[in-house]
């Protein structure tokens, strides 16, 4: 059974269709990437899976259990954690305390949560910054903190929303490596949305392409990125006419 199943999910806002009958699934212990031009509905889909919105139609299942429409904190308890496109760590709290909040999701004691938080922060390269206040970090570190905080909740599925945006290529490679390691060590499955193709190609086992809220392609990266429909969505119909595709 796939870990996550999204089946014919639709969502509209005041008549505007953001997501239209999206269907795809994510297998356990894999990394999948959700790509598509701006406005394609990627973040909306994320918000639907994470419980911030309720789907108008369709089903979302985690380990076979329906989670569509559950409030965000219940979705987290079920095993899904997420990061946000516009980073939002707890600015007045220290790096360690940020991660502790996440760790308390599964740890019963504060001491246990602190231990777990320390471990996760170490894996994500923040081990020597634990007592710093979150608002004093660089963007790259804030990104990593948000990932660490989410990982600390021991999710089965980690949703990463454009986590590479604004990072320099060196930082992208670093984060890619950390995510690979984290995914392996934590036994997580990752679903990420990205514009930074470098990261997508380095990480993804599967790519799902969204356009105007619909899934127009999914499969192995190499195949998907050659599909005409995908190229058209990014480059436009006219661009393809002379490209001999």
């Amino acid at each position, binding site marked *: 059974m796939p870990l996550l199943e999204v089946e014919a999910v639709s969502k509209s806002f005041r008549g505007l269709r953001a997501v239209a009958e999206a269907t795809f699934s994510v297998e356990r212990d894999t990394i999948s990437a959700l790509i598509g031009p701006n406005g394609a509905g990627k973040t909306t889909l994320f918000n639907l899976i994470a419980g911030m919105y309720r789907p108008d139609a369709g089903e979302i299942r985690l380990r076979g259990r329906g989670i569509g429409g559950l409030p*965000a*904190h219940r979705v*987290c308890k079920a095993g899904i954690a997420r990061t*946000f496109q516009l980073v939002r760590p*707890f600015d007045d709290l220290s790096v360690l305390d940020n991660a502790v*909040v996440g760790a*308390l*999701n599964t740890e019963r004691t*504060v001491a246990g949560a602190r231990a777990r938080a320390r471990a996760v922060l170490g894996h994500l390269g923040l081990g020597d910054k634990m007592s710093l206040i979150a608002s004093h970090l660089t963007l790259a570190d804030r990104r990593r903190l948000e990932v660490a905080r989410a990982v600390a909740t021991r999710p089965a599925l980690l949703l990463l929303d454009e986590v590479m945006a604004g990072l320099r290529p060196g930082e992208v490679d670093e984060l890619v490596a950390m995510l690979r390691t984290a995914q392996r060590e934590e036994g997580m499955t990752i679903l990420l949305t990205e514009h930074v193709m470098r990261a997508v190609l380095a990480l993804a086992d599967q790519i799902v392409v969204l356009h105007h809220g619909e899934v127009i392609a999914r499969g192995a990266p190499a195949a998907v990125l050659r599909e005409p429909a995908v190229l058209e969505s990014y480059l436009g119909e006219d661009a393809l006419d002379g490209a001999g595709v």
Partner: protein
Amino acid sequence: MTAVRRRGRVALIGAVVALAIALPFVANSYILSVVTLALYLAYAGQAWNVMMGFAGQLSLGHSLYVGLGAYASAGLFSHFQIGPWAGVWLAIILCTAAGAFIGALAFRLRISGVQLSLLTIAFAELARIGFDHLDWLGGPGGLFLRVAERNSVDLLGFRGPPAMYYYTILVLVGGALGLCSWLFRRRAGYYWRAIREDEAAAQSLGIDVFRWKLYAVALSSAMTAVAGVFFAFYYNNLFPEQIFSFGRSIEIILGPVVGGVGTLLGPIVGAGAIVVLGDGTTELMNRIGLDIPGGKQVIHGLLLLLVTIYLPEGLWPPLARALGVAPRRL
């Protein structure tokens, strides 16, 4: 912190504690009553601070809980001769229920900001008018308790000399300090701080924001209930017009706002400042021969004004930093 600093700080704390314990023996009854009042405001402010600091909700109707707590315990004592040690439990149950009710209403319906504050005022006003019509609790004429014998200590009935009340409120303030400190280090402290920072992010980390905000509100109202019980048995008379009034609600928030909302010691520092400046000035005026009714409140208003304009953090954080101490936030 250097060893010298640490020893200095311990010595300072020791001196304060020693003075606090010795006060009834060294000070005259006027000073004692003023300090008792300051401690009462500090405690009520600490209770309010829990709701504001932890749940981020500006309650301007906290007099509701003081009044409910006071009337519940006073009513039991007056009609059924049940002492305050048992009465306080009824007070706590009633106030927690009221607080949870109002909180649940507000959070479910997403009422916040001005409208929440107005809602809290409305409930306090409804209680004021309601109790004005409850004749078996005294009605507008007031509910009176048997006045304390100054020399005998009746612990069960909580009647006794002023020193007894002083020590009680001192213990309450210390207890509140300890409770908030303790909670700060537990799951509750982490979750409440997360909620205060960013509710949506907190929710995404598995925190049931609604439930935890409700916990903060319930704790705050429960603590305030005890303040009400103390009030009833210290002052021995209750009038709905006074105890549920908007002015009383403002009086409760003055301490924490002036001292520093959301900090551990802010309410205590603030209450101290208010009483020293307010009652101190009034006393000075009386000595000169001036009698200005309402003068104390003008001073309170001025203090609130100045703090809001120039020291929005409150008095305590800058003072703490000057003393080289980090102002502990809730």
